[in-house]
């Protein structure tokens, strides 16, 4: 018997018996999904679904709409996973797909949504906000209450960090239109936040 063989056997046994199974790496998940393994697909979904649901909620008006976007987005993820070149984090790639799914959903629903800008002032003074004064759910509700086109521009500019030029190209609107819509969305949000809680000076 070769020296060390029992050790290696016991080690492997120990490893197999001990502790919780290590979660698969991103590459393993990707490979499993590419092979069509359902378990890998489910693990990938569980790893990213909560964060992607938050993204979808920002772009949707209701939870049901967000779930639709999430489902469509993940379907696209699994179908087009082979085209993922692993040059960027997987989460970033999935997030981009979710945003595109949301935009597509918006385009489908846009003709059905009656939009009203409401009664808001043209401009507001720039304020400084204390982060701890607001909760996630409150801010999410405020964003969801925005008109769809304002919500899109605000999300893309303020949260995702796209420039107005990029947003204009994405939404096939001019850069100026994107700026004015963002400005309008900002005023609406500031007004609603002011109603929600007085800003800390």
């Amino acid at each position: 018997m070769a020296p060390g063989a029992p050790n290696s056997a016991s080690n492997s046994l120990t490893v197999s018996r001990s502790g919780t199974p290590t979660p698969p790496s991103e590459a393993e998940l990707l490979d499993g999904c590419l092979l069509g393994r359902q378990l890998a697909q489910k693990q990938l979904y569980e790893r990213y679904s909560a964060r992607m649901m938050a993204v979808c909620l920002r772009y949707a008006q209701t939870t049901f709409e967000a779930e639709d976007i999430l489902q469509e987005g993940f379907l696209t993820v699994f179908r087009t996973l082979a085209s993922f070149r692993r040059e960027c984090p997987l989460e970033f790639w999935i997030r981009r797909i979710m945003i595109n799914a949301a935009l597509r959903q918006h385009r489908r629903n846009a003709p059905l949504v009656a939009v009203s800008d409401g009664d808001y002032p043209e401009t507001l003074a720039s304020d400084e906000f204390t982060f701890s004064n607001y909760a996630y759910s409150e801010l999410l509700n405020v964003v969801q209450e925005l008109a769809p086109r304002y919500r899109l521009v605000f999300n893309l500019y303020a949260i995702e960090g796209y420039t107005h030029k990029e947003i204009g190209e994405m939404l096939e609107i001019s850069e100026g239109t994107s700026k004015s819509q963002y400005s309008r969305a900002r005023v609406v949000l500031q007004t609603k936040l002011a109603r929600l809680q007085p800003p800390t000076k």
Partner: protein
Amino acid sequence: MNLSTPPKGSLEDLFRHHLLESEAAAVPPRPQVWEQLDNSLLLAQNEHYRRRLRVHRWAIAASLLLASLAGGGWWHSQRPSASLATATGQATDQPDLATARRAVPAVALPAPMLAGTTAHASYSTLLTTPAIDQTATLRAAAQPTVAYAATEAGGAGSFATSTRAATRHVGDKQLLAASQERAYATGHGAGGWNRTTAAAVPASIDGVAGADSPTPLYAAQTAAHTVGAGQSADLLALSGELAAGISGETSATAGLALQALRTSQASLASAQVAALPASLSPVAVVMPAVEVARSWQFGLSYAASAYQPNIDFTKAPVAYSTAMGANSASITNTAAAEYRNNLRAGLGQRLGGWATRRLGGSRWHLRTGLELAQNTATSATSVSFLGEQVADLSYAQAMQAHLQKTSYRYRSASAAAEMRYASPLKTGFSLYGRVGALLTSLLNVHSEVEGTPEATRTYTLLSTDSPYRHLTASLRGGAGIQYRPVGHQWSLNLGPVADFGILSLNADPTQDFWRQQRPYSFGLEAGLELGRPLKLQ
């Protein structure tokens, strides 16, 4: 006391902090979402498998067809040699040739006779059957004159001569036996291939057998009746000679016939046909002339191919309408390029009805026919591009990261004319080649965007806004293997075929003619042709 200042920031910072960076920015979806997603994935996987299965089925069907054709061809190629071997075997296994003679009736026998009687059957058919069997006709076509001569002259001249030569040695048993074997073997060995020899065989056999048998006159008489279903005068004369040659050998069973023959021996010996009884007067056997048919043959064909529409929808910016927005031209051109990059060939299926006519005495045939075709193709664009100009007021550009699969179905009707090179006579397997042109009317184009049913478009012949050309032309070339069974009036053909468009499918190409992108397809075509390539006159 070190009190940290609570984090503050602008409106953007506030939302980014809470909605993007915060740990709270994670909302687990309901479990039902995964169940629905899993179900959708399963359905998509099933659809994928279904498509693969369809491809496999076609491949298996094509393989089976090829295998059956090859097997049939092999079997067919084995038949003549087997018959020949059997015939040879029978010749050696049957010392009593009269048995073989008796086994052959004077009436026409079907072509696929047992090997031992093949020569007799062919002979009888040749002489007595007004409706010539197709097999005999096909073989006779190569040498119709020879076959006719065999009946008219050879059957009465050289045939009689050879038999007489055999009967001269009637006293020599060994020589006679040798003659028997030679005559029989020659007759059987060549009977299936040479009409002249075949005609001589039965008479030789019967004549010799008559001389050798204990009932020579009966045999001789039977020979006259068997061979002389056409009532050949020379054959009867031969019977007379035969009877005279063996007059020393009496037979109780042939007494009456011998008496009758002795009575007319002198006249029969001189072979005067005029002296024969009226009932035995010679009857001219006229072989129907055979020539290659020039009438139309009809057939059906089915082709499965990989079809590539190969369309380039890009245009010069000035060619687009300005009514759809300032950026419409650039968006549409980008989409057209994306469409072209992702354009993939799809399954093309074609069903055609053909009429074929042989040109003169050559191997060239003119084929013309009508075809109905359904071709498919797929592509993917981020703007649901289907060939039309894209308005810049839509949000289509937002979908750059995710390509939407688009599928296209083209239905068309074509009128085709082809020249086909093939042997009209050859049975079994043979090769063919063809080249031709088609004029195609694009009846219907159905375009779908995956996940966007409202984007579905259907263009017909009446659609004025169709981006597709309604009338196109293309060239076709193909080759393959043809199987025509012996004795049947149909043939099968199978082979690869390729189509190349002369015109682009794009209704309004901006490229010059030589730089246009044209559709093409490669596939396999199987056809059935009805009608016989030979006809009787």
